[in-house]
């Protein structure tokens, strides 16, 4: 069983829709949860960082963590074409990150 599982997509939604991206993990020792966004032919950049169960909001983005289910989500409201990218979840209990495989998202104008 992989430590972090992420649906690779691809996922295509119309502009303005709510997007839900998800990851599951197997190691209950993980305590820090991140979402990275990666545009085509670029390096990943941090989008959201949280370390507790519950929701964390930043503009149109909401990160949700459910430690009891070992499940994390990223919600994007009012999706824009500029949100088209690959989204990677990353989880850690120390200095090293374990990444999901990434979900490729396309927002259709």
């Amino acid at each position, binding site marked *: 069983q992989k430590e972090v599982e992420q649906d690779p997509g691809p996922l295509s939604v119309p502009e303005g829709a709510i997007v839900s991206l998800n990851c599951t993990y197997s190691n209950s020792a993980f305590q820090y949860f991140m979402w990275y966004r990666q545009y085509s032919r670029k390096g990943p*950049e941090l989008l959201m960082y949280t370390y507790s169960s519950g929701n964390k909001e930043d503009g149109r983005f909401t990160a949700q963590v459910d430690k009891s289910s070992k499940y994390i989500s990223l919600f994007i409201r009012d999706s824009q074409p500029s949100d088209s990218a690959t989204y990677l979840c990353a989880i850690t209990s120390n200095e090293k990150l374990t990444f999901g495989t990434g979900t490729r998202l396309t927002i259709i104008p």
Partner: protein
Amino acid sequence: NAGVTQTPKFRILKIGQSMTLQCAQDMNHNYMYWYRQDPGMGLKLIYYSVGAGITDKGEVPNGYNVSRSTTEDFPLRLELAAPSQTSVYFCASSFAYLGTSGGPGRSETQYFGPGTRLLVL
């Protein structure tokens, strides 16, 4: 600040050739990392370094070597290139708090470079 820089951007190697991928950061981060990214496989950690003079293996270290002589630079060496090393390589850096009393540390945001695309033929 330039952040994390990588050179070259793209390289074609023949099987058996060697090369060094360069990585530098100007944020005074103590931790530096090398990842490879293959289609549909996410990012896999090759090597990482907790500071100058200290390196450690990640998940997929075979076929690679690293050194960390300064805080700023963390080159990745491929000695005998193989087709399986065709990939996109990303360098990253972060400030990490070391664990106390043997416990795990914690890393702040990892900042990634733009990547090096390597094709081995």
